[in-house]
């Protein structure tokens, strides 16, 4: 290794990648050379696999445990496999629990698969390996790929909404966008998004995944499960396993769905008549002259003009082939989604090839490569614009001439349709991403497995944008002003281009020792090493033409079209970071009923100073399968009961910028001296040399239970998790620069309950019902001993401070409306309060309303979440119903607080205060009354909702029905998503806006989550 060390001396960071490759190469060579060592007597085993009802099962995977040898059953359920006489066969089939059967020198083995033993035999991802769900001591929930594939969503994670207790997902209706995902509350002020692990590779973004190409999704929630992932895993881990080819079969699978999306909840705003009435009332309240509406005869519903019924089409075609020596899977996906906001569109093309070659039962190598290409046409107008534009204005006279807004909002609010049409198809945004992996696995000495994997994730995005000429506008005459048409000839065309690239390299090397010691002790030990290196760079530029207009034709949208002497701006930047870790895990089971799992990880990150760089994290979990103890044998109603408890400690460095521990200088644009523009610089932030990761510690206790002949499944978890040394970005008062430091402590406690009941009535009718519920309590224990700042979000509407939940709503509490001057005199009020103003609660009881009377008004993050799913099957028919909701949070209707000029009114303003006693809720129509625009409970609405996520009816054709087409199995379905919601939320979607940690919950033009009605097919050839 001396050579190795000297090799790296004096290398700059540019050679890091190369060095990494050298490291990996040496490892591969070192281990690839290890020979396969032992041989035992093989025999041929035949048998038949049937279901509990006696039906033969085709396509059941039969694997010789501990080897790569395997087969699968044919159409009649028969299989043939060659294995050692003392081997164990593992039978697994989607929807059934896997079974292990000892060969014991038998040549015929018949197996009955049962649905009931289900879940617990299932294998879940536990970090650099897998484990039987039965042996888990942490809290991991699995969702089957088919439950994701049957949902017509472009993003697979979107389909998990409501399915997993403790997992909160907020979807966006924006075409191609990723949902916001939170696991067990918000643990940090800095980052709250989980990390995704796709077949072993760590990702922050999984846009490249085809929902139809997923085998399972495992959600790892508690610190004991995530500790082995080190600095990346602290917000939870969502592990995704892609499909592998089924043993011994050649299959073709095609799925397709076509749907239409529609915005079914419009925001209620006044129409022309209502607007005229309210604006006239406002002017009268202000004592201003009435507005001349004579020429404003239109009644335009701007929301109707910007929304559309949008198509969504998702397709996937998979080929798989598996033989004795190799398996191949090829999957092709194509998605085309229109946004409901004109003319938003997203197209996605995916190809994945997975190949595995088994040289013998000891050595296998393989790889996988995914190619992903997307094209996006972003929306061209803001949603709020359509809410704010006065409805009295007509749209346009001809294609190039639009009506401008009335003079009172002309400068601030544009014609929404003009904005839409001017900017549509003026942006070409594309991206490519290639995710690949190569692995080699060697089994030796019977109990050892060495596996080395190298991964890469390469992304390339580019966009070209065009800034077109404006339209002409008709200004309708008001009063003595005549109607005129204007055209702004100072606006010039411009183009911009941007490109970015990202590269990530990861290597994992693991050694596993897996052995049964005697009949009572099962031991698995894993040790490994991993490193991740990331690099990104971007470049962008724009240029404006001052002489010749650039045509509205993509052929011209390059910077080179415009002469170099024209004004423009150019920029670029880069980032680089790395993580190195070594880890180990011990899993031990005594007689299969006393379970122990322990992990250890040592991680180093380039983000921190050398002395703060390294940390060690660990976890310990214990479990007791009560039902395996002899005293439990007589309890017949309970089929399985496991009690488990786990503790874990890990670090969190997610979402934090590089190099914050040392000073940096950034561009402060310009200073002008002597008529020349000079470059100016500034210290970009305040460095904290002692910066280190957040520390996450937590307990998780739970029970897994099966009752009534395995028909009832129950899982209960209680957790208590605390993050300390939270990495927080403070904008220091009187400094205005950011300061990043370790502050504070946040605790999340909660309970999660999942139930599942499935049964049959008669021979043909099956049904299942599975509800889940979770409650999370968040409390900020402190934000630093020395630095007890309040952290402010969304311009002061949200506050984070000691003793309250993170990012809570902080403002005045409305008690009513001041009805009369006498009312104001006798109650607490602002010095300038007038009748018709919102009356606020005098929190500090000093008889006045001041900024000291702001108080806790609620939390933007839902503490209660619940979901349920019901499904029925009768012969070929199936039906499914899924619902989901949250409770306990508030939504801030920030779109209504805007007061920069006269805007269209939302319908609630029709009830505005006019005379004493007219209302005790809606203040007077008078936009000079600033107190009514202070953030208060008037702008909050309950965020509780229940939404029917999916209603689906399907029919599966029998094996013989379509065989003349070569079709083995086919299912067709009709599906409706988000078709009904119950909530008091007035916005487009009731889903809590939880993306911002310190300033969450604001509806400031949230993209609607549309209802989707679709038809789909799933065909196997």
């Amino acid at each position: 290794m001396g050579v190795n060390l000297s090799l790296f001396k004096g290398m700059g960071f540019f050679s890091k990648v190369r060095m990494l490759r050298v490291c990996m190469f040496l490892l591969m060579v070192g281990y690839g050379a290890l020979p396969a060592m032992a041989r035992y007597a093989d025999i041929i085993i035949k048998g038949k696999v049937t279901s509990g009802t006696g039906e033969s099962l085709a396509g059941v995977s039969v694997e010789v445990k501990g080897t790569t040898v395997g087969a699968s059953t044919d159409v009649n359920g028969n299989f043939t496999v060659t294995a050692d006489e003392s081997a164990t066969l593992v039978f697994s089939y989607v929807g059934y629990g896997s079974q292990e059967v000892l060969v014991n020198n038998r040549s015929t083995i018949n197996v009955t698969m049962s649905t009931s033993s289900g879940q617990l035999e299932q294998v879940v991802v536990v970090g650099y390996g897998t484990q039987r769900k039965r042996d888990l001591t942490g809290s991991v929930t699995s969702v089957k790929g088919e439950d994701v594939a049957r949902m017509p969503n472009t993003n697979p994670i979107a389909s998990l909404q409501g399915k997993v207790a403790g997992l909160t997902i907020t979807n966006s209706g924006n075409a191609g966008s990723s949902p916001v995902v939170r696991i067990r509350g918000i643990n940090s002020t800095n980052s709250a998004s989980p990390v995704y692990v796709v077949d072993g590779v760590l990702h922050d973004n999984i846009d490249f995944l085809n929902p139809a190409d997923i085998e399972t999704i495992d959600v790892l929630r508690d610190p004991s499960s995530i500790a082995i992932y080190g600095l990346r895993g602290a917000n939870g881990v969502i592990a995704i396993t892609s499909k592998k080819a089924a043993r011994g079969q050649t299959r073709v699978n095609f799925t397709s769905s076509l749907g239409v999306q529609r915005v079914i909840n419009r925001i209620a705003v006044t129409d022309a008549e209502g607007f005229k009435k309210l604006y006239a009332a406002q002017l009268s309240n202000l004592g201003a002259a009435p507005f001349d509406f004579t020429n404003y005869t239109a009644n335009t519903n701007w929301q109707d003009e910007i929304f559309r019924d949008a198509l969504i089409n998702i397709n996937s075609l998979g080929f798989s082939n598996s033989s004795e020596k190799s398996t191949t899977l090829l999957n092709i996906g194509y998605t085309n989604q229109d946004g409901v906001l004109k003319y938003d569109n997203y197209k996605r093309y995916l190809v994945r090839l997975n190949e595995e070659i088994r040289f013998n039962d000891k050595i296998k190598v393989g790889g996988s490569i995914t190619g992903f290409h997307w094209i996006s046409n972003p929306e061209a107008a803001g949603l709020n614009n359509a809410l704010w534009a006065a409805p009295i204005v007509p749209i346009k006279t001809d294609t190039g001439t639009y009506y401008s807004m009335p003079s009172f909002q002309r400068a601030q609010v544009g014609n929404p349709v003009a904005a839409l049409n001017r900017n549509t198809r003026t942006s070409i945004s594309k991206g490519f991403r290639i995710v690949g992996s190569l692995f080699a696995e060697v089994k030796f000495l019977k109990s050892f497995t060495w596996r080395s994997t190298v991964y890469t994730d390469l992304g390339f995005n580019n966009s070209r944008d065009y800034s077109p000429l404006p339209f002409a506008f008709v200004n309708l005459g008001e009063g003595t002003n005549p109607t005129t048409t204007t055209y702004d000839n100072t606006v010039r065309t411009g183009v911009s281009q941007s490109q970015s690239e990202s590269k990530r390299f990861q290597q994992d090397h693991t050694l596993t020792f897996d052995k049964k010691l005697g009949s009572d002790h099962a031991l698995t030990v894993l040790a490994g090493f991993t490193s991740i290196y990331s690099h990104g760079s971007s470049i962008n530029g724009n240029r404006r033409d001052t002489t010749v207009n650039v045509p509205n034709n993509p052929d011209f949208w390059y910077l080179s079209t415009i002469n170099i002497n024209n004004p423009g701006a150019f920029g670029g930047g880069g980032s680089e970071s790395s993580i190195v870790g070594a880890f180990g895990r011990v899993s031990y089971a005594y007689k299969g009923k006393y379970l122990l799992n322990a992990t250890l990880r040592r991680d180093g990150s380039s983000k921190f100073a050398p002395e703060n760089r390294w940390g060690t994290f660990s976890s310990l979990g214990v479990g007791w399968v009560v039902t395996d103890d002899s005293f439990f044998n007589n309890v017949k109603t309970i089929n399985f009961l496991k009690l488990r408890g786990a503790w874990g400690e890990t670090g969190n460095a997610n979402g934090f910028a590089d190099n914050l521990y040392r000073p940096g200088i950034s561009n402060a644009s310009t200073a002008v001296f002597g008529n020349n523009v000079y470059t100016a610089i500034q210290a970009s932030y305040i460095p904290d040399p002692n910066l280190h990761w957040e520390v996450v510690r937590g307990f998780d206790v739970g029970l897994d239970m099966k009752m009534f002949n395995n028909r009832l499944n129950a899982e209960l978890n209680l957790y208590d998790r605390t993050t300390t040394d939270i990495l927080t970005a403070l904008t220091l008062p009187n400094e205005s620069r950011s300061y990043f430091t370790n502050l504070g402590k946040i605790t999340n406690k909660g309970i999660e309950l999942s139930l599942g009941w499935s049964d049959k009535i008669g021979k043909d009718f099956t049904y299942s019902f599975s509800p889940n519920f979770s409650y999370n309590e968040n409390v900020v224990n402190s934000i630093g001993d020395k630095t007890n700042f309040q952290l402010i979000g969304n311009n002061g509407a949200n506050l984070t401070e000691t003793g309250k939940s993170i990012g809570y709503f902080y403002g005045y509490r409305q008690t009513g409306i001041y009805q009369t001057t006498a009312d104001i005199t006798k109650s607490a009020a602002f010095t300038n309060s007038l009748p018709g103003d919102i009356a606020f609660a005098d929190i500090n009881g000093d008889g006045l309303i001041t900024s000291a009377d702001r108080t806790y008004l609620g939390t933007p993050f839902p503490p209660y979440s619940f979901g349920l799913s019901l499904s029925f099957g009768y012969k070929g028919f199936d039906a499914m119903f899924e619902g989901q909701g949250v409770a306990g949070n508030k939504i801030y209707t920030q779109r209504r607080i805007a007061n920069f000029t006269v805007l269209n009114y939302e319908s609630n303003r029709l009830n505005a205060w006019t005379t004493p006693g007219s209302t005790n809720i809606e203040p007077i129509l008078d936009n000079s009354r600033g107190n009514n625009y202070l953030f208060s409970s008037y702008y909050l609405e309950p965020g509780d909702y229940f939404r029917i996520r999916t209603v689906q009816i399907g029919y599966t054709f029998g094996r013989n029905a379509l065989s003349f087409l070569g079709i083995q199995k086919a299912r067709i379905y009709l599906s409706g998503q988000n078709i009904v919601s119950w909530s008091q939320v007035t916005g487009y979607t009731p889903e809590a806006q939880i993306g911002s940690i310190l300033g969450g919950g604001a509806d400031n033009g949230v993209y609607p989550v549309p209802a989707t009605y679709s038809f789909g097919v799933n065909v196997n050839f």
Partner: protein
Amino acid sequence: MIRYTHYKLLVLAVPLLMVAGCSKKFLEIDPQGQLTEVQALRDPEAANQLVGGVYNTLYLGGFDNSTVGFQWAILGDVASDDSDKGSTPSDYDAGGAGDVDNFRPNPANGIYNNIWNGHYLGIARANKAIDILNSSTIETTAKNRLLGEARFLRGFYYFNLVRAFGGVPKVVRVPEPAEVNSDEFQTRASVADIYAVILEDLQFAVDNLSVKGTAGTQLGRATKGAAQSYLAKVYMYQKNWQKTLELTQGVINSNQYTLVPNYNLVFREKAVSGVGGANNSESIFEVQTGLNVAENAVSPLYSNGQGPRGRGGWNDLGFGFNSPSADLAGFYEPGDTRRNATIIFINPTVAGRDNGTYLWDGFRLPSQDSVENPRYNYKAYHSPLLESGQLTSNKDTKPKNIRLMRYAEVLLMYAEAQAMLGNAAEATAKLNMVRSRANLPASTGTQANIWRERRAELAMEHDRFFDLVRQGRAGTVLRAHGKPFVDGRNEVFPIPNAQRDLSGGRLTQNNGY
């Protein structure tokens, strides 16, 4: 078995050695695309650019964090009797300039927070620059000059803050992270303490900066004259007339400044026959603008925010804020040339006749029915016809230099100091220099006359409100003007709620808010 054990050991050893061998270098990653502070310590040009970063904060404006830009005009002018909010009645009203105009006590108003943040951003950059310069190894003369400039700007910013808010936190060095939340940095220093900082900073600048035009000076940089003028102004606010006199005397005796003969050329960009224009003979400190492709060397919205606002049908010049009041229009003595150089008057509409207003450059504004407000600030006007064209069509970034300190004000400060020290003849002489330039007959140098002259001379230059407060008659004058000015409250603006929240409530609110 021994052989196998060796295998095992090797297998375990390899990854461990790999971690040791690869990781140390692997985790050493330097910042990408950033300069470091070490360079600023050695490189005079980097030190120069760091001070440039302090000057850069003079451009903070628009509706964002602001120093001397558009929102400062709201405080200095709109709050006073010189001007009204302007624009349409509802535009920027509650929560905006309307609150300031009508003294609605709204500590949540963003203008106050923007002014606070903008000034402290400038102060923070100055502190950092001073910190680095103090340990810098560059040549002493250059170092002291740069230190003087940074301290001049810091003193200037504190002077604005203390006038706007009263006592504010005293931040005169880069705090250690551990102490940022200490009471030292999170509570308000007294007004006297802040004035002490200002006096010390400006005195340092007076001592270390060079006289205009001598070696080491450059157009746009703070000079000895600028430092003397501001130090004089600070002493004037403290009624230290002797110091005011000495310092203004110093400026006058430097013989570097003369009044521009034609008042209307003072605010133009280009000199006419060598007279007036940007950085003219009476300009002592002025926010420079530069033409670059990014158009970021300007105070955004300064000109456009105050520009004439159309009612459709023509390409208007701006948002129409800070509209000079009828009271100001009626204030000028007959024949005062400053009236028509300060105010753009919109003519009433007369049927059948072109009654538009023609500006100095020939630009025609339509008559009242097509224009929102009756009057606009001529001193913020940037001609689209005869002054520097922009490289983009962004009207928000018109390159208008902001005149912060003019020789005329120095003369008036000198006159007031002489008047207060009982030297009426000298007071009268300097007062009449200013009056005669405005084509007005001679007057006598009493304090009352000088105050009148300050209003006429400096109207719409964002000084009036603070001057009225200094004179101790803001309440009398503004109540007479119809504003609900409350004595003991409205002399200063409220401490912004956002800042009080950030301090955890330790920043006390001003009286009456």
